[in-house]
């Protein structure tokens, strides 16, 4: 009697390819909010906490335009030389902020996201790991029915436009402004891709960590759409892992939108080929359940869409470099 139930596998057979019609269209209009740059003004929710303080200092050192933070009850005070506000609405009104980064603990993080959505902040990046799935289902229900706010995460390292704006916990110094768009479900594994692309001289146009949770605000397709439309992004690296269908959906999107002679080269690595079924591998979303969500199927789907899949995380830089050579883009 395997505990890996049939329910998830059954649902795989009824994959919704066209999701939620009109609602989905409205939320996808917020994809453009992912384009952060030197003008992006960032506020921090959970500003005065340990994580908020540390990463805000790092952001300021990197040159991100951090303009203030939220810590209910501490409004009016100053922290790291910046104003503290009681609410997101107040902070947005006073600073003109266009993005918010959330370092609030799991029991309160969903409420923090909701507050920022209510305040119509264009971009929310939620770093928090451990938000209950039911909470995120409720957040997502609200999120996809509006068109002002884009959420990235939760349980993600954040978004970075190297040299211009860093929203999240990624180490800034390994990044170099360049030509590769990187999108990933993993945090530390992404830094491998970043390091390698910096080393081979290609650099990164833009990196998005979409996070490891099953219910999140931004998926691979959202980022691929932005990358395909961005003239600065000439190549793409996609880092996936076991669990769910995000990679398969991404493959279908690429087949539809990135084919032919002008297709941008896409290189990928899928973590978890050796993961045992039924176990949650760290990330809430990294689980092979009911026979679905395995790495082999994801790799096959991506290869079928023209993606070059590397079997080793050590060869992402060299692989995309080769692809650039082949297309005489160097």
């Amino acid at each position: 009697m395997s505990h890996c139930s049939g329910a998830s596998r059954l649902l795989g057979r009824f994959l919704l390819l066209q999701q939620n019609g009109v609602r989905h269209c409205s939320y996808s209009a917020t994809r453009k909010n992912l384009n952060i740059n030197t003008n992006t003004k960032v506020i921090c929710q959970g500003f005065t906490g340990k994580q908020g303080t540390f990463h805000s200092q790092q952001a300021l050192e990197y040159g991100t335009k951090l303009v203030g933070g939220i810590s209910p009850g501490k409004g009016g005070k100053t922290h790291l030389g910046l104003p503290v506000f009681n609410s997101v609405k107040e902070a947005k009104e006073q600073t003109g902020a266009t993005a918010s980064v959330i370092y609030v603990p799991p029991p309160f993080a969903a409420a923090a996201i909701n507050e920022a959505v209510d305040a119509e902040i264009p971009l929310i990046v939620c770093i928090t790991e451990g938000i209950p799935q039911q909470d995120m289902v409720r957040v997502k229900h609200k999120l996809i029915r509006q068109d002002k706010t884009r959420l990235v995460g939760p349980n993600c390292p954040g978004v970075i436009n190297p040299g211009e704006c860093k929203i999240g916990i990624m180490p800034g110094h390994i990044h170099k402004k360049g030509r590769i768009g990187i999108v990933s479900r993993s945090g530390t594994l992404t830094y491998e891709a970043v390091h390698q692309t910096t080393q081979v001289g290609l650099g990164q146009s833009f990196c998005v960590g979409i996070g490891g949770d099953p219910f999140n605000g931004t998926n691979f397709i959202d980022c691929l759409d932005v990358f395909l439309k961005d003239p600065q992004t000439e190549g793409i690296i996609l880092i996936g892992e076991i669990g769910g269908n995000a990679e398969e959906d991404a493959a279908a999107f690429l087949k539809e939108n990135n084919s032919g002679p002008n297709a941008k080269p896409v290189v990928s690595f899928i973590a978890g080929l050796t993961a045992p079924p039924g176990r949650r591998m760290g990330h809430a979303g990294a689980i092979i359940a009911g026979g679905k969500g395995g790495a082999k199927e994801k790799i096959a789907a991506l290869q079928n869409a023209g993606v070059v899949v590397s079997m080793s995380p050590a060869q992402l830089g060299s692989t995309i470099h080769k692809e650039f050579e082949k297309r005489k883009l160097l």
Partner: protein
Amino acid sequence: MASPWAAQAGTALRGLARRSALLRGSFPAVQLTPRRWLNLQEYQSKKLMADNGVTVQRFFVADSANDALEAAKRLKATEIVLKAQILAGGRGKGVFNSGLKGGVHLTKDPKIVGQLAEQMIGYNLATKQTPKDGVKVKKVMVAEALNISRETYFAILMDRASNGPVMVGSPQGGVDIEEVAATSPELIFKEEIDIFEGVKDNQALQMAENLGFKGPLQQQAADQIKKLYNLFLKIDATQVEVNPFGETPEGQVVCFDAKINFDDNAEFRQKEIFAMDDKSENEPMENEAAKYDLKYIGLDGNIACFVNGAGLAMATCDIISLNGGKPANFLDLGGGVQEAQVYQAFKLLTADPKIFALISVGITGITQWIYAILPCEHPAQDVQVTIRNAP
């Protein structure tokens, strides 16, 4: 700039893999039985359901033969089913080291319940899904046996594609549901539920009809469906699967068996449920790791991993495999790892006699890469640590 860890690890790993393969023969592989993260015994799941208005067979739990006998008498049932309570499946065909065959027995006589329980409690039950020596049975469930005239399948789960809860059902329950899906997909019914509106009356009635419940049974089944959904939300389940969701000849809708998966992220607000977690059938190292909040999963190789980040941890296991080795574990130290946890993790991994080498990968304080390969010829002694920091 120093080259990335992965490239260097690759070279070192190929050497390690060759040596570790030679040693692998000397250590028996750990038996891997897939486990849910949170483990509830059958009686615990059924009590949860019963407490929330879901119809299950009446039952008592006993931890001695005498209690089992008394429970059987109290039950006042026409027929009684006695079930050994262990987490692993395959109980029906299991064998006790007392000599008794079968972990599930039907009888009409309470005295026999007592006699059988005598041969169950305190003894080990070995099934296809337990280690060879079996698992000690501490409790038995004494339940009212009911006849099933019809078996259906019903489940509720949080589905990524639908962005929320979904009900899945089939009038063909009791058997392997995946086979039904493969051979008769028209017999699988699916209904999305709006998380804010809950299960609407017409949705519940429609699903009950699809499952083949007719007349007064349709309303009864619809009622049970709503109660199961409420339970699903209340306990922060990621999945509740009832198979069979059955019909008795007397006209009752009963949940004969259920598998519940829980969201670990909700532990902080589901303390009562997580307190019921029975860790006795887990691999001891996993329990030890859990004590220090380490995300550890035992695998059957002999190269230990010690990594900062889940994706990177999975990739580390993958790259070991790619180079011909076998990972001994998955270990994600996580973003907020403390020094004490790192120390405990090292201690835990190097104490395992089957570990030949240990690979550590990660970032601490976000500005440093720490990279170490520790060849452990004799894990308890002579551990050499090589640490390289990237600038």
